[in-house]
């Protein structure tokens, strides 16, 4: 299941990354090396094995729905690269 150059570019776009021209070859080769290595798991029959997503048996953690103090708008916006009138500012979308 080798990744082609075009697929690598597509995955980069999905991940909101762009690759420099010289990186496309390198990433294609390195990602394929890693994917070839993880194919090793195909040696194992996992039929009927329940996937493990969380190691500790925990159930949903609920809390009371009460009003609590959170971040102030000022603190929340403090690290924003651009802001205006109490909002995050981004390039025009529409």
């Amino acid at each position: 299941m080798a990744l082609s150059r075009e697929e690598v570019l597509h995955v980069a776009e999905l991940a909101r990354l762009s690759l420099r021209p010289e990186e496309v070859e390198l990433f294609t080769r390195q990602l394929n090396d890693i994917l070839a290595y993880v194919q090793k798991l195909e040696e194992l029959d996992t039929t009927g094995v329940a996937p493990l997503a969380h190691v500790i048996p925990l159930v949903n953690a609920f809390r009371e729905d009460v009003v609590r103090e959170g971040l102030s708008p000022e603190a929340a916006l403090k690290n924003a690269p651009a802001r205006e009138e109490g909002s995050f500012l981004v390039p025009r979308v529409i």
Partner: protein
Amino acid sequence: MTEPLYRLSISRLAPLLARKELSPVEVTAQLLERIKERNGELNAYLTVDDAGALAQAREAEARLSRGEGTPLTGIPLALKDVMTTKGLRTTCASRILENFLPPFDATAVAHLRRAGAVILGKTNMDEFAMGSSTENSAFGPTHNPWHRDYIPGGSSGGSAAAVAADLCIGALGSDTGGSIRQPASHCGVVGLKPTYGRVSRYGLVAYGSSLDQIGPITKEVRDAALLLQAIAGHDPKDTTSVPEPVPDYQAGLDREIQGLKIGVPKEYFGQGLDPEVEAAIRAALKILAERGAEVLEVSLPHTEYAVATYYLVAVAEASSNLARYDGVKYGFRAEGRSLMETYLNTRTQGFGAEVRRRIMLGTYTLSAGYYDAYYKKGSQVRAMIREDFGRAFQTCSLIACPVSPTPAFRLGEKLADPLTMYLSDIYTISANLAGIPGISVPCGFSSKGLPIGLQLLGPLFGESDILQAAYAFEQATDFHQRKPPF
């Protein structure tokens, strides 16, 4: 006092502070001075908070004089730059967070502050904790204090190097696939990864959320117990933290290990294990046996699949976790003509190569049509790896094994080949997949004078047991007393 103050451990410094034989201000000032003079040789710290540390030291002094101190009051510590510190720059060694000033403290940090510890600064790491050598830092690699041409291990390399080089009294790191234990091993210090859920992850910048844990890196085993005591416990702000009572980790430290059943996984002694590391581990097992432990062989049959499993699970979680760095809410932004172009420019310029590689790998393995073959398969094998430990712990109380297949390697040696770098995590990764605790304790040196660590793994919430065995080993040896030529 014949020894410089910065050489002291937490357990040796705390009584001197409590009896007011030493002032925390004096100790802190001496450490800040040493950092100023020597950090340039190692690049262990990314940020040093001179003013903040001295202010905290003065507060600690006042608290101690009121007789209200804890064992950590006035103790100068370093924090891996992956946990948030209110108002103190937190970068994750990434350009994308280069100027990030968190509006809150991580819970582990808040615990340390409440205990009166002094935060000296933030230590270097692989960017977003992705790496095994601290070479993936956007701010340059950290050097191993035992030999500056060698890596300190990673990703908590800055914390381990700072502890080994006496640039702090103790430190916190984080461990997703070995990132506390492996650098501790390579720098000749103690590193403990707690059970998943034992320490709150609130404020720990997420990499692989089902694997990440904060833990101590210290000069001796007792210090690890002390630091863990301060940071362990349930946190309502982290729904994956466990409401299990926290035992007194120091209480049983000096118990005999007579009759303790220590399992040695035969799969950990195969191809790829450096002969010098193997010799040091075998010698360590002999010492444990001489102290009365019963050393027996166990099997962890799916060991050879652990690295592949880890890299599927971790990168999938990483690709999702790192989607938040978009140049909108905080962090670095590279402007574009459109929002899409802003995202692309920001993330491409803000992330280093290894981070981008893992994000892409995770994006691919989670993408439509591939989920079953990769993420689901990985999660199934993860269940089998956990089962291996469950079976092993039916016949033994602890597992002893190497931390890393080789001593520290040279800077630059594995950078060009990510897969070879990944394979160096073979002995540490399984503990994260299974959620179990593990500790690295110094157990020898290579012929080049580089440290070697012994790893002790315990069942879920078995921190007391691994600390006890590590302490017994430490007391029977003098490896932890040796200092790097720094």
